[in-house]
């Protein structure tokens, strides 16, 4: 179980423990300070908005989906597939002249189907989540290639784009861009769901030690089905948002988010007392990744060096986290 193994037991309140948990917020602060000094435009409102909308929003939503799967002791490698499916159906529906809400519903449903398929494989057939969702990813790729004649994007002409779509992708509310409202909505809903509902607590228990959940009579199988459908549905939201932003469906784009989503989820576990996946931590992890890639761009690193920079950063955070856990265990 990923969550389980990642979560070394934490003694409450020890100083080293606090230090570790403060690691992510402090890193965020330091990175922020560094870039605001080295790149004056870093703190400019326009830049902040661009960071949040372009680098942060989509990854945050996908990472929240990933967090749900990891919290239940599994993983979902097919979050990108759900995103793609949602985007495909949404854009196709709009392109064929469907009403926005029909397209929206169809997209969310199509994305969720990937989750239903995962749930069938994991709960029904007993395949481990890693392999099951890997299989879904592969099959999803074929499905997209077959339905798009080998990966030809579908573009929406200006005239076809629904005003609701424009609002989703490019609008704002109270001066704050719509995508950010959506992230806020998804994050707060899921945070409450995971922390403070019976369902969320059961999911956490399954992630910590599934046999105990089973021997305590919790509805383990039903909860896991819900988790994978939920993860896919959340990814589908990201798919709709992406399509609304670029007014197109580009096959197999979702997978580009996969690795960063896993990275953000595990970076996020560092702020939890017991090292468990949690929504706030994940969102902060995504923020860190977004800030670093934007900051590196502003200080003049090209796109390629940004990849190296963010990759090295994730690596570093993991090293520090796990090294201090190991050190704490020994002492």
């Amino acid at each position, binding site marked *: 179980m990923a969550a389980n193994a990642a979560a070394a*037991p934490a*003694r409450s309140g020890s100083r080293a423990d606090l230090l570790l948990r403060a690691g992510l917020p402090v890193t965020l602060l330091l990175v922020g300070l560094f870039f605001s000094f080295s790149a004056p435009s870093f703190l400019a409102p326009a830049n902040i908005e661009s960071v949040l909308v372009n680098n942060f929003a989509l990854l945050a939503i996908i990472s929240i989906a990933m967090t749900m799967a990891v919290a239940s002791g599994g993983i979902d490698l097919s979050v990108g597939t759900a995103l793609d499916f949602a985007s495909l159906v949404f854009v196709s529906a709009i392109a064929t002249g469907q009403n926005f809400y029909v397209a929206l519903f169809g997209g969310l449903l199509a994305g969720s189907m990937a989750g239903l398929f995962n749930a069938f494989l994991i709960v029904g057939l007993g395949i481990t989540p890693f392999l099951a969702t890997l299989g879904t990813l592969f099959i999803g790729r074929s499905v997209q290639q077959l339905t798009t004649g080998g990966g030809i994007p579908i573009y929406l002409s200006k005239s076809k784009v629904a005003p609701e779509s424009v609002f989703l992708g490019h609008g704002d509310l109270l001066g704050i861009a719509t995508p950010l409202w959506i992230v806020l909505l998804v994050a707060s809903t899921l945070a409450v769901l995971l922390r403070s509902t*019976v369902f969320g607590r059961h999911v956490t228990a399954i992630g910590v*030690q599934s046999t105990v959940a089973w*021997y*305590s*009579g919790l509805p383990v199988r039903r909860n896991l089905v819900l988790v994978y459908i939920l993860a896919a549905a959340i990814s589908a939201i990201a798919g709709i948002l992406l399509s609304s932003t670029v007014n197109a469906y580009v096959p197999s784009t979702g997978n580009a988010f996969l690795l960063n989503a896993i990275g953000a989820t595990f970076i996020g576990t560092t702020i939890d007392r*017991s090292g468990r996946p949690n929504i706030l931590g994940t969102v902060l992890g995504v923020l860190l990744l977004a800030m670093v890639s934007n900051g590196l761009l502003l200080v003049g690193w090209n796109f390629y060096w940004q990849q190296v920079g963010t990759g090295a950063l994730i690596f570093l955070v993991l090293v520090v986290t796990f090294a201090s856990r190991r050190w704490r265990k020994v002492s």
Partner: protein
Amino acid sequence: MADPKSELALSMRDLVKDFGGVRALAGASFELRPGEIHGLVGQNGAGKSTLIKILAGIYQPDEGRIELNGRDVHHLTPHGVGQLGIQFIHQDRLLVPTFTVGEAVFLGREATFGGLLARRRMERQARDLLHEQFGITLPKGALIGELTTAQQQLVQIVRALSNEPRILVFDEPTAALVKREVDRLFANIERLRRQGITIIYISHYLQEIERLCDRVTVLRNGKNVGTVQPRTTPIREIAQMMVARDIDDMFPKRRVPLGQPVLEVSRLQQARHLNDVSLQLRAGEIIGMTGLLGSGVKELVRILFGLSRPDSGTIEIDGRAVALGRPSTAVERRLALVPEDRRGQGVALDASIRENITLTSLQRYLRGGLVSRRAEEAEANRLINELGIHPPHPDTNVRDLSGGNQQKVVIAKWLARQCSVYILDEPTLGVDIGAKVEIYRLIGELVAGGAAVILVSTDLDELNGIADRILVFYRGTIVKELRGGEASSDALLAWSTGAAEAA
């Protein structure tokens, strides 16, 4: 004990070992004469395993001296110990399941030919050794994972013997064996001794010590309280040395009047495991259940809790049938299970005491649709106080608790749900004596509060001490019902092995 030092095969003196402020060994000593079978007993936490791990080179002692054949040895390492002629038969069989017998026996000292493994030679040598030592022949090409537990143990002994040890250490070797296999193991150990091998035998079971050992050393609180000859010392006396308290006080007798039937099991049938089992449990009653491996007791527990589905038969709680085969429905009907594998199935080790206690009763703490942390904490604190869980902090990780306190957390988890039938599967296995007494007290309080209890156990004193009646299982059926407090060891043994029926 006037033996000169040089005649000792092994002497460990005044060993001290601290683990982060906890003293595991406080000046323990252990002396082994050549050619004897020497038992080592003590409760959990007495320092047995620390002592053995020091001998195995896994821990280094903080103080103390170790001599082998009169020569000082410093800084033992797991690898070096083998070269000094000491071999271990570990409790959990340390064999790779996908290896052949030959590969398992010779791992680390493989026979090679021209740089490649001489597989056939290793298989042949392993087979020869097994045949020579134990007169058995395993199926050709069998993998370790395909062998029975007892066969795996023999492979491990052969692996140890192939290193030509002078001292062989058996760590709880019978834990997973059935009676017949235990007898055979003992005969084999006797024979090894006749071959001149000195043996250290660690066990919880004093009967085994009495049967097998020439001398036994008793550890308590990190010190040795004495070395005696078990053949001339009554078992009760040895037990007394281990616990330093009168074991007659252990069972707080508490009989409560029986109420309505709460659980009715009729005609349960499951291929190979259970044959026509019926029973009735009343409020306030404690039924003891016992039986050997394969007797069907464990399967009955699994069926009752919905972990396994019977072929036919019904279960009723409070007069209404229970949907079979799902733990969640069993729990809905206020059935509770305290499983034998506490750390694997009973408590979530990396969750806090609070989270464990409230796991099955979260609906109770909902305030406005959300789980209220404050309500949870109030309930956790109440149960922590009531059960005396130590440390009394709801946010402590359960991993950091002692076995007895972990078991209390499991019971608290079900108390929070106010269950009506509690199934306790070996609830005192591996907990120390103080916690044992508290668990018995708790069971007494459960029935006093109107609940009913099924106690699955192989501990005779426990069954006699607290059960109202004892059901003995043999080959899938209940062969005998005995009254609690009146069951003799002989009777239980006779019925559970089928000897009584045959007679």
